[in-house]
């Protein structure tokens, strides 16, 4: 190579290096947001969330059957009368009403009129829907079907069908969505005084005596709707409960619109929030998270701060697998929720077991069962729901500080460090109640959600 060519070569090298350096910011987003290859799951999780064949917690035995479907509120009322008598129940309700009014008049932080009504109004959408009616209708509401449009129904590979539904779910407001196979044992036996039955029919039906789910509905879209972290940190107050009530209304909106979307593609869909079936096992099977000491789901992005809902459908989709990111091992060592629970309702057992705590638990699966009676009794005392267990869980974190992602990843791959992370969680002051009255003067994002966190869901 002569001298001139050498010089050109050096310059060429510099130009190449410069172009490469300048291209990095362009190339990286292209890699991240490029077109999805066919057959790939669009719901990519962080590297430290491993897919597994069986859930990390939830092993079942022969006692596992469909849950009766009794409302937890009705169970509490009956148990209260049974244990302490009718007079105790009446006295408790009177005290609840009296405290509610007194605290409003006293402007007790988090329990004032605006706090309580913010929470109550959060129910609006949810309360306008009942299983089989309105937003939660089991059959088409208004959308035109492909047959009415004179076209074939939507057809694609199972993975593309799943991706389509997940994209739509995120569009309507889901924080995370996954696909699980239908498991009839997760479906309640009864609701609203009617049986829930599976039959070989073409469409779902709500009759005088029964709710009919077609056997051909073999897929379940499990959905997690993230709750407002800034409100959860105000628990237990009326203001804090707003995160729950709005979460339920968002669930009704998401499943109602998603079911209508699926019907518009030419398939059947049944939207469900807390009704009809247990949401948690479907969410576990769909890989949205792991069961925990709370006896609730913990998700990688939002921790336990989610409300769950689902849509049953006959639209064929590729199913997801359960995930493992170290939650069960972390819960064995942490116990912060059980320590902070004011009613002592959560289990301190080192290991999950099949031992249930009362008729509110559906027996036959391994879990850290909770004492819902104690939990509800505490609700009566504070006049709202509680939520302290959600607020103090070390997985309940916003996504701005990188260190949270590092800790979640480390807890996933190095369980021996769990005790250290638990100790640090206390040192850094996480889980302490934030001043309720300050919430009203803070600049809140829509639905109280950190956009970085939602993107990572």
């Amino acid at each position: 190579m002569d001298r001139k060519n050498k010089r050109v070569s050096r310059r060429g090298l510099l130009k190449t290096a410069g172009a490469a350096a300048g291209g990095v910011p362009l190339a990286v987003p292209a890699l991240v947001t490029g077109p999805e290859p066919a057959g790939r799951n669009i719901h990519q999780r962080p590297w430290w969330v491993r897919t597994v064949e069986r859930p990390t917690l939830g092993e079942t035995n022969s006692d596992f059957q469909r849950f009766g479907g009794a409302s937890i509120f009705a169970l509490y009322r009956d148990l209260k009368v049974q244990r302490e008598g009718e007079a105790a129940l009446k006295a408790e309700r009177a005290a609840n009403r009296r405290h509610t009014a007194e605290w409003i008049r006293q402007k007790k932080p988090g329990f004032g009129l605006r706090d309580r009504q913010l929470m109550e109004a959060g129910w609006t959408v949810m309360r306008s829907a009942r299983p089989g009616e309105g937003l939660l209708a089991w059959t088409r509401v208004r959308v035109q079907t492909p047959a009415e449009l004179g076209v074939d129904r939507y057809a694609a590979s199972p993975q593309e069908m799943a991706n389509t539904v997940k994209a739509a779910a995120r569009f309507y407001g889901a924080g995370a969505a996954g696909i699980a196979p239908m498991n009839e044992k997760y479906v309640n036996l009864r609701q609203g005084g009617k049986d829930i039955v599976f039959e070989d029919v073409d469409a779902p039906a709500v009759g005088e005596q029964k709710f009919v789910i077609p056997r051909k509905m073999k897929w379940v879209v499990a959905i997690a709707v993230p709750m407002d972290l800034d409100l959860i940190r105000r628990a237990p107050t009326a203001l804090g409960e707003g995160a729950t009530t709005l979460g339920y209304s968002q669930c009704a909106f998401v499943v109602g619109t998603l079911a209508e979307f699926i019907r518009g593609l030419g398939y059947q869909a049944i939207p469900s929030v807390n009704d009809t079936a247990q949401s948690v096992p479907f969410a576990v099977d769909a890989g949205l998270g792991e069961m925990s000491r709370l006896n609730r789901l913990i998700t990688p992005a939002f921790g336990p701060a989610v409300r769950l809902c689902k849509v049953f459908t006959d639209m064929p989709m590729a199913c997801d697998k359960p995930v493992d990111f170290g939650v069960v091992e972390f819960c064995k060592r942490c116990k912060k929720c059980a320590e902070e629970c004011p009613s002592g309702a959560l289990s301190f057992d080192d290991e999950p077991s099949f031992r249930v705590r009362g008729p509110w638990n559906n027996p036959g699966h391994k879990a850290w069962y909770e004492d819902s009676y104690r939990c509800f009794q505490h609700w009566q005392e504070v006049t709202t729901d509680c939520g302290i267990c959600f607020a103090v869980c070390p997985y309940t974190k916003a996504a701005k500080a990188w260190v949270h992602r590092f800790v979640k990843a480390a807890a996933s791959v190095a369980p021996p460090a769990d005790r250290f992370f638990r100790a640090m969680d206390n040192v850094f002051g996480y889980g302490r109640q934030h001043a309720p009255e300050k919430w009203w003067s803070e600049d809140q994002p829509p639905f109280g959600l950190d956009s970085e966190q939602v993107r990572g869901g």
Partner: protein
Amino acid sequence: MGRDYHTIRLRRRPWWAWLLAALWLLLMVAGVQTAVASGCESEYRAAAVSWVLVAALLLVGGVAWWQAGRAA
């Protein structure tokens, strides 16, 4: 008659010193990011603890730098 030149001695640092310096820098960046982000997340105690850790780390780094300079 004085010398009309200076002698500059370049001391080659061992590989582990560079590694420690890189680790220190990484911890500093992580600490500052945590402190700032915790403030944005209204986690004021976490922010305060993070700033204390950053200050401690800065002090340790400064002392180590000074000691290394004296040893050279």
